[in-house]
């Protein structure tokens, strides 16, 4: 479904991705783990078109989208819940969700919104509240819900556990597993490898802009190097 071939992305003259290749198959949940600055978020920003790669190919259903503008990428079926959540602070929960459906004109938006409220009942309780007044965990739910409102074929999630109380992280991860079970393909970026390897099928380990290791998630959890560097055991 998604294939990255040796992409190299720059911020000015700084090469953040030094040739990343990975693939995600239909229905999978794939994770990208690594420490701060490894290039995880840059990979997702490259896929979404926010910081297009200077070299390399990004194939989505066989079509190269490396130089396609962000709004077209959303239209093709890739949406993202970005790092730091980035909810529209002065809009209500419901307005935020509706922004997620910005490109859609079909009649099923209401049904999809109801589905998001089903996945995150907390959002329904807060639907008229301004996003900026909610807790980090609630905003994270909103950011994921908002990305779901685009009805993506591929959902990109960037650090859904960052800065959130552990009890909420668990709830969010249960929901991520549920979204994947219901048929949405997921590419998950996470610093917290414990959670990420728990929910995903396969994983890639990123270090300073390069993929250094890839395996089934269950094998990665047993890998001594991964355990030492990312699982803190």
């Amino acid at each position, binding site marked *: 479904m998604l294939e990255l071939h040796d992409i190299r992305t720059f911020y000015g003259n700084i090469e953040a991705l030094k040739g990343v290749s990975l693939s995600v198959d239909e229905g999978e949940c794939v994770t990208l783990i690594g420490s701060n600055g490894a290039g995880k978020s840059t990979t997702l920003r490259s896929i979404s078109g926010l910081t297009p790669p200077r070299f390399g190919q990004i194939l989505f259903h066989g079509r190269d989208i490396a130089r396609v503008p962000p709004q077209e990428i*959303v239209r093709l079926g890739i949406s993202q819940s970005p790092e730091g959540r980035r909810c*529209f602070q002065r809009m209500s929960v419901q307005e935020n969700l509706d*922004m*997620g459906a910005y490109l859609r004109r079909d009649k099923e938006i209401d049904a999809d919104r109801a589905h998001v409220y089903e996945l995150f009942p907390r959002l329904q309780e807060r639907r008229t509240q301004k996003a900026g007044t909610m807790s980090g965990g609630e905003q994270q739910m909103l950011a994921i819900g908002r990305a779901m409102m685009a009805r993506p074929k591929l959902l990109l999630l960037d650090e859904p556990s960052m800065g959130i109380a552990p009890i909420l992280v668990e709830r969010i991860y249960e929901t991520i597993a549920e979204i994947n079970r219901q048929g949405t393909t997921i590419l998950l970026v996470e610093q917290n490898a414990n959670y990420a390897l728990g929910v995903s099928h396969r994983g890639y380990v990123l270090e300073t802009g390069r993929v250094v290791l890839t395996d089934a998630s269950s094998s990665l959890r047993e890998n001594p190097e991964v355990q030492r560097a990312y699982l803190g055991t």
Partner: protein
Amino acid sequence: MEAATVPLSRSTSLRRLREAGGRYVLIALLLVLPVAYGIQDLSQTGNLSRLGNNLVDGLSNGAIWALVAIGYTLVYGIIELINFAHGEVFMIGSFVAAGFFGTIGLTAAAGPAGLLVGLVLTLIACMAASGVLNVMIERVAYRPLRGAPKLAPLITAVGMSFILQNVGLLWLGGSPEGIVDLIRSQEVFFTFAGVEVSNGDVLALAVTIPLILLMTAFIGGTRLGKAMRATAQDPDAARLMGINVDTTISMTFLLGGMLAGAAGLIYALYQTTIWYFQGFTAGLIAFTAAVMGGIGNIKGAVLGGFIIGFIQQISDNRIGSSWTPAVVFAYLVLIMVFKPSGLLGEQTREAG
């Protein structure tokens, strides 16, 4: 930001004062002049009609500033840039109005119906010309600098301002040009309780109020309006929603320019004198209005525009017009000291 970490007893006492009475101090401050002169009028003439006249004139002048100020505030809200060329976009609106009168042969001899049709056509022409001009300015001078340091587009904005002033200079020469007084703007339209409302006042409000209402409805209710609000709050998040941020920014410049064009027409009809330098003064006043009201906030820009209109009229009429700029900016300084984010200021993106 650095300064905030340095403890200063004076700044904390000032902050306490702001928090305690900020709003009431502001309201009191704004009411000082009208109340003082109202009492003076009452004790001298027994009625308030002079003050009433000041307020009506202030309202129509304020309408022009409000329309121009919205353009500053919209653009600042979405790309955090002070569009210094905006005053000139307003000036070009006035020039197009004067030119268009000549083109369609509109004179004071046209009957009321002919005049109305002519003016509506001129309004459309001015709004279209200024709107398109503003979009072109953005395309040429700001868009290529989107990723550049913030000073770069600021300086190209100053550059565009001077370039357009020179266009005005070439167009109509360097001295103020009188234009035909189509609506006999100083003629009294009606009198109410001793307050005279002139044709110009009626025109200013009849154009401004519907335009402001339409604009607010557009931004609040339409898809594009939502895109504008989302882009203003977080451009990258807006891109992830599938919003074409460049198009949205262009639309913002179009809207701001259209309002400036309408203001240009009102100004031309109201003042019956136009010249290439009018945009500089008007731009400065309207920018002040936008900051006073809270830059980025549309209601604030309108409020700021009207407040400055009132202050100017009261000062012109009571204190002396040579003092007016000093009075206006003294008010600005006081308001800023008590409420640095402006009267209705929201937190901007930078402030969180």
